[in-house]
């Protein structure tokens, strides 16, 4: 979208200042490269689905509210919807209220590029972090001190005896 606007502005300026420099020579290289792509991207987005309005989005989200308490909780959604709601849960308490949903929708409407970034998944925010651990993968070993500082625990030693449950967390 941004590239399109730059393109239009450039074209407008060129049109006003000179008559000869029509066409692609005078345009800055970035918009030249980006414009066919962004046009393609936007065209695809527009033809794919109608631009959702906030009311419709809110309604769609709250169709998942099975117990009708005005909030969406983890057990009411599944799959990709979970990821979607997790992003809008601003205080990260596992509950999505109508206010959080409205704020989240408004933010997305203002910044449509955000949608693309999150759709790319790992290439977005989490680019620099190692791949998430999955079931079946080896648990990374560690050696940490206990709270009283008197003993050290190594995962490899623990789990050789019994399976180990790990809860990661903090106070807040």
């Amino acid at each position, binding site marked *: 979208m941004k590239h399109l606007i730059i393109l239009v502005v450039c074209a407008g300026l060129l049109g006003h200042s000179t008559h000869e420099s029509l066409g692609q020579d005078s345009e800055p290289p970035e918009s030249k490269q980006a414009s066919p792509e962004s046009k393609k991207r936007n065209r695809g987005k527009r033809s794919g689905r109608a631009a959702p309005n906030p009311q419709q989005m809110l309604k769609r989200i709250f169709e998942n509210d099975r117990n009708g308490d005005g909030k969406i909780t983890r057990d009411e959604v599944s799959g990709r919807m979970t990821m979607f709601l997790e992003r809008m849960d601003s205080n990260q308490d596992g509950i999505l209220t109508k206010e959080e949903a409205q704020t989240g929708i408004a933010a997305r409407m203002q910044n449509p590029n955000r949608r693309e970034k999150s759709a790319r998944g790992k290439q977005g925010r989490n680019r620099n972090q190692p791949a998430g651990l999955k079931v*079946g993968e080896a648990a990374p070993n560690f050696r940490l001190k*206990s709270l009283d*500082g008197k003993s050290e625990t190594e995962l490899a030693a623990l789990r050789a005896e019994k399976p180990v449950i790990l809860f990661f967390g*903090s*106070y*807040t």
Partner: protein
Amino acid sequence: MERMYNKFKDVADFRMIYIREAHAADGPRPMGTGKSLGITEHKNYADRCQTAEMLINDRSLTMPMLIDDMENTTNQAYQAHPDRVFLVRTDGRLAVAAERGPWGFAPGLKAAEQWLEAFKKTGEEPALARPAEQTPSDR
């Protein structure tokens, strides 16, 4: 968590690992308990131990707790921030690796509980749902 601990502590080891604050009052996301309690980002190991102790006392936790180092090594290795549940089998592989955050915690607990029930009943570790060969490095 405590309930699960008390139920299964004879068959499995439970450890809480205290990592960096999820909602520190001076951190990037101060909403949540951090702001109201004035819990700020840990400046040193002693700080972190202190907040961990506060958690134990306030919630009456009996589970053994380990403290992650100030380089957040374990947190990074496990991608655990802000909360996460894991179950490590005796062969070292993960039987449960929940999604991060509050959305993944409850299902993670449930999966762990189911695994432990089966383990306690049969004395054998349940087989992994997916074959171990399908690690990301193979793809």
